[in-house]
């Protein structure tokens, strides 16, 4: 089934997210959709899959004009999308998620559904337990479930929006193999949105590149990485420079940590982070990294083991004690964890300003806010409510709230959702602190980021922690295998 979009326009307020985009996708082929953050990729895909309605423009399937404005409508014409965070229902089982949305009567035939599910999974090489609640699956498994579900709905055009962040190398290769099969054997049209040039090079037959809402070019494979980068950013980006680490005293020491969550049990975890060092925590979502970061800042109480900061046992102490001991923490969510919607910028600085007395000195707060706004180049005023800032600016505020030289800086996904520019800027700030002697520990789903900035990398797999022997020379690909559960030794042998 071929799909054609013609002159698609979509604006959000002042943002022209899709600006006159026309493209054609033929059946049996895999298309890579490339572009920096905010280029408009997701917007276009959401228009195709019925989540958004284009302001203007047309969609044609096999040359025939179609209209729909819901995901359901898109499915009916044969287009299905797998979102980056799959749109499934956590507490429902795999089988229930599979059945839900299928055109069945009021009383589904559960046995038949079970058979059909097993059949499709088998064919694509996915191994999924039908009675498992979906909330216990990894992102990769949930993506597999969504693909099976969409195929069962009979989609002929499959859209995948950044499916390769946060999955292991194994899952990636299974995914790629099945996508290839679906395109070659079944003649599906596959649209693959990604930032990862390697993935696109490996998988796709053609690419289309968007920038600032406009289509800037298409190309048929093979093309070189350099050509793609030039199309995406207008110029080739210099690879980030790496600095030499000169670690100092041990700042954080974790001994025999024992923790558990719904998804994972972590035992006997040992970690040590020294001043001036950047330690990256790699692993699939829910492999235990978050348990560690939360325990290290006093937000979760370990079931066993000890957490030492500067040699002092802080196990089980409250978060405030960790703050007092020089620990700073940046959580993954911004408005959920770290910024208070409803408070102004200045109020944020007053709250975190140790120099404020019992009575608030608003003038002092405003001055500090102005200072930081200038220094961190935040787009906003001291009295702007924080929720009116853009995502990138919120991230900057979070950085500005971190004191200039904490002893230990723990960050979760510090650049998630940021474009390359902003991400680099954030890392500049982090590394500046690091150079001043701060010990840094961070998690990321972006293997590139881990490889680029870490002095040491700890890999989490199902609650097991192993250190990558030589973080400086590990490749993204190797790391991808490690987070998928391969042992360090095994991998070396391959």
């Amino acid at each position, binding site marked *: 089934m071929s799909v054609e979009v013609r002159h698609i326009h979509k604006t959000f307020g002042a943002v022209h997210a899709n600006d006159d985009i026309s493209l054609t996708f033929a059946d049996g082929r895999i298309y890579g959709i490339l572009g920096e953050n905010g280029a408009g990729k997701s917007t276009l895909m*959401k228009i195709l899959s019925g*989540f*958004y309605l284009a302001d203007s423009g047309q969609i044609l399937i096999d040359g025939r004009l179609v209209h729909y404005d819901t995901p359901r409508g898109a499915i009916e014409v044969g287009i299905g999308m797998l979102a980056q965070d799959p*749109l499934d229902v956590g507490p429902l089982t795999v089988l229930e998620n599979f059945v839900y949305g299928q055109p069945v009567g*009021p009383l589904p035939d559960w046995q038949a559904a079970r058979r059909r599910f097993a059949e499709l999974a088998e064919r694509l090489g996915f191994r999924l337990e039908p009675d498992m609640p979906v909330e216990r699956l990894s992102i990769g498994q949930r993506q597999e479930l969504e693909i099976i579900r969409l195929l069962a709905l009979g989609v002929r055009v499959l859209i995948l929006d950044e499916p390769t962040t946060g999955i292991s190398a194994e899952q990636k290769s299974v995914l790629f193999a099945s996508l290839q099969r679906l395109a070659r054997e079944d003649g599906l049209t596959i649209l693959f949105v990604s930032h990862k040039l390697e993935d696109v090079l490996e998988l796709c037959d053609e690419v289309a590149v968007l920038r600032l809402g406009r289509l800037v070019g298409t190309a048929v494979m093979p093309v070189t990485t350099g050509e793609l980068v030039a199309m995406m950013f207008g110029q080739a980006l210099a690879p980030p420079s790496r600095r030499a680490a000169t670690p100092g005293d041990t700042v954080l020491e974790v001994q025999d940590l024992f923790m558990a*969550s719904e998804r994972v049990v972590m035992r006997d975890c040992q970690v040590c982070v020294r001043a001036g060092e950047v330690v990256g925590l790699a692993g699939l979502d829910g492999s235990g990294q978050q348990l560690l970061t939360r325990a290290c800042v006093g937000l979760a109480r370990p079931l066993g083991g000890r957490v030492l900061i500067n040699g002092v046992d802080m196990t089980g102490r409250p978060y405030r004690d960790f703050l007092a001991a020089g620990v700073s923490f940046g959580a993954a969510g911004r408005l959920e964890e770290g910024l208070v919607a409803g408070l102004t910028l200045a109020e944020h600085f007053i709250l975190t300003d140790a120099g404020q007395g019992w009575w608030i000195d608003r003038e002092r707060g405003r001055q500090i806010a102005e200072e930081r706004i200038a220094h961190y180049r935040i787009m906003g005023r001291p009295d702007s409510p924080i929720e009116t800032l853009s995502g990138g600016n919120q991230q900057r505020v979070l950085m500005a709230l971190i004191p200039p030289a904490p002893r230990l800086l723990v960050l979760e996904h510090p650049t998630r959702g940021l474009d390359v520019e902003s991400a680099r800027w954030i890392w500049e700030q982090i590394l500046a602190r690091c150079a001043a002697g701060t010990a840094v520990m961070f998690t990321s789903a972006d293997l590139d980021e881990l490889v680029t900035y870490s002095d040491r990398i700890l890999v989490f797999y199902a609650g097991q922690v192993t250190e990558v022997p030589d973080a400086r020379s590990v490749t993204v690909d190797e790391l991808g295998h490690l987070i998928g559960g391969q042992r360090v030794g095994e991998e070396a042998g391959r």
Partner: protein
Amino acid sequence: MDSELARVLGSVVANATPLVIASLGETITERVGVINLSLDGSLQLAAMVAFVTAYASGNAMLGLAAGLIAGLLVALLILFSNIALRQDQVAVGFVLTLLAADLAQFLGQNYTRIPGPTFPTIPIPLLRDIPFLGTVFFNHNALVYFSFILLAATWFVMYRTRWGLALRAVGERPAAAFARGTNVTRTRYLYTAIGGALVGVAGASYSLAIKAGWANPAVMRGDGWIALAIVIFGGWHPLRVAFGAYLFTGLRALASTIQQTTEFPLVLVNAVPWVLMILTLLLVSSGLVERLMLLSPPWAQRLLRNFLRSAPPVALGTQFTRE
């Protein structure tokens, strides 16, 4: 003659009926993502409306219908102000708790403590004659039987049908439900209406059967809160919720029986429901169960998870807007 135990259990089953119906109704409402906090008031309003209607018309069925509508309207008002006007469900629910109770008192002021139509006891032929069970389960009024059917139907619809999938999905992840073609807003209105209607039926079952008549102060004052707590205790699962309602009624009866044979001060018996309420909420909310679950071996985890899972619907109390 039936055994005393059978008669006592029969009383418990009958007395638990409004609580069972109300907490099942609230379970349905909350499973679709909406908190109807107004239960304590809407039960009273429904009871009053049901009684006055039955009294004026001489027909208990009409009364029931009127009570049902009262409960339904209150619930819809909460959802309307949430969906259409974007107001907080809890705030509106709280105001309606007080307002509905006052309305019941005011509008019902001339109808207190007068006899009116009731739902008669209908022993079920054959089943009634089963020793013990017959007395416990099959010698009641129609509303008690309705609660049995409701329980089975709620469970079946929720876990075995396509509608149940949509219901649960809307309460857990409205965006996913939307992506699969479910109209989130309509689904919320539908099940909130059903849940509210059941609360109305529960209110009517007080004034038309269990505590026949309308009185002021309303005889069920406080039960709305208990029902809300039972929903949490029951982990939003209809079977466990109903179990909670029966257990609660049974313990309340037990406490007052025990009081009569001991020196325990009589007024303090009234503290029992509230102490029970706090204890059960502590049990499910303090993380004790989760901790137990995490530390137990995997095979036990599975069992425990099924029986003790008490996570509220993820989207409870939130709004859904399509991007």
